[in-house]
């Protein structure tokens, strides 16, 4: 402790905050030059009517960008679980993905 000189004692206290994990940068996939003729997967995480929303996204592509093929898929289980089988399937059969509505 030290006196600030104005009658107000200064205190030394400890920081209550934990240790942040070191951030490891992740690479991003190369973006597509164009969506023409590409297959885009619309991934439904099955949360709060997200599938209904993605059907509207699918309709939008049909009307405005008919050269884009869209495929609507549901995640295999609840959105809180990783889904490597679905991700592998999209990697094999698709060019890009839209996931929504995220939480």
């Amino acid at each position, binding site marked *: 402790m030290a006196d*600030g000189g104005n009658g107000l004692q200064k205190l030394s*206290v400890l920081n209550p905050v934990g*240790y942040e994990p070191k*951030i490891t940068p992740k690479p991003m996939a190369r*973006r597509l030059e164009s969506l023409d003729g590409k297959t885009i997967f619309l991934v439904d995480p099955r949360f709060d009517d997200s599938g209904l929303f993605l059907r509207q*996204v699918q309709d*939008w592509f049909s009307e405005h960008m008919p050269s884009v093929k869209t495929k609507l898929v549901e995640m295999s*289980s609840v959105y809180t679980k990783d889904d490597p089988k679905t991700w592998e399937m999209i990697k094999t059969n698709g060019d890009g993905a*839209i996931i929504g509505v995220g939480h």
Partner: protein
Amino acid sequence: MHAIALDSKYGVPTVAIHTNVFEKAVQSVTRMHGMPEARYTFVPQPVMGKTAEQLRAYVEGKSPISGRPVMQEVIEGLTRPAEGDRLRAAQFKRSTPRLLDSDTDENLHRLFLENNWTDKLPIVLPTEKKVAEMLAHTSRKPDEIAGHLRSNQFRQHWEFTVEKVAVNAVMAGARPEYFPVILALASSGVSARGSTTSSMAAMVVVNGPIRTEIGMNSGIGAMAPYNHANATIGRAYGLLSQNLQGGSIPGDSYMGSQGNGYAYGSVTFAENEERSPWTPFHVQHGFKPSDSTVSIFTGCRSTAFTLGVREKYWREHVRNMLRGMDAHSAPTFLLDPIAARQYIDRGGFDTKEKLIQWVYENALMPAGEYWDYQLIQNYIYPRATFGEEPYASKLKAAPDEMVKMFKPDEIHVVVVGGETNGYWRIMGCNYQKTVSVDAWR
């Protein structure tokens, strides 16, 4: 989170669409996962319950965050090359200094409040002397890693030492002799400040000799603010959770839509082992009666209560209470010793397990109603459709067929109360784990 994995690990250009209330949370999660350039856009909250026309308007509309067309951001997200600037900005390494800059009592209190390090109630400043006194009540070294916490499964764990737990215990006003209980809670890996839109809180049940050693209350008013150990251990659990996991800030690292008043003290109490007619909770979970433990439950959003277990219609009364619970959070019966003994008299439940079995068989709901609950749709239905039991079998039931709401291993019984009357309640919560306190003495 899934978009980050699909993009970075599988090499698939991906765009995530979120609702606007998650703006800060999305920024925080993408940064912490090392992809600050992750592509996303926003539509208005909520999506749930909207018509096809309303959802179409979202798709054709503008992002409420950027003001730009949603589909334009989607298409750009799939096609615009990465810039790298924000990524480089994220590659800093931070370490938390042990001491804060010295300042006056008033200024430090303001600093803690403004930095969201408190529960908005006054705290005890963690001076080196007070923290040392706290540390004297454990054999563990101050720099030993005590555990890891995170606010939900989409965020990364933060790490902390025994000393960091002591700092938060001091802030909560806990006495040093409570410290092993607080360390056990901190080591559990279960956060009392989980970030879920459903506004969770934790519940803590203490068993074994430590209850009497530190003067915890299991009797009159045990779950209310009338006992120093109950109150400050529960408060410390909340403060250490938020500060050691990287925060709990509304709109950023806390998304509970309504919040939860139970979070102030994490419903912390001792089981009334002396007046209970049954086996203590920790013994049910593999510990000896002489062991001291903390058991943690999460959820604590829904409760039902009543007085007594009536001779004629007790079964109907209990079924009504169960039917009114949130079907996704399992029931934990919190019984005053009078009510516990009445359950033995009425139903012959001479063990907790027998009562649990009865609850399992009598918590019923028509299948159609059960599957239509939004929480069941979000969290159970997807598991059922991919064959996970018992949900897959339940999915085959006709809409008017009665199905069981819960699994037997999700149902629990704890005895608490001071026998001023036979009141009891059901807490909707999920048992997480029981942790040894003795390991942290």
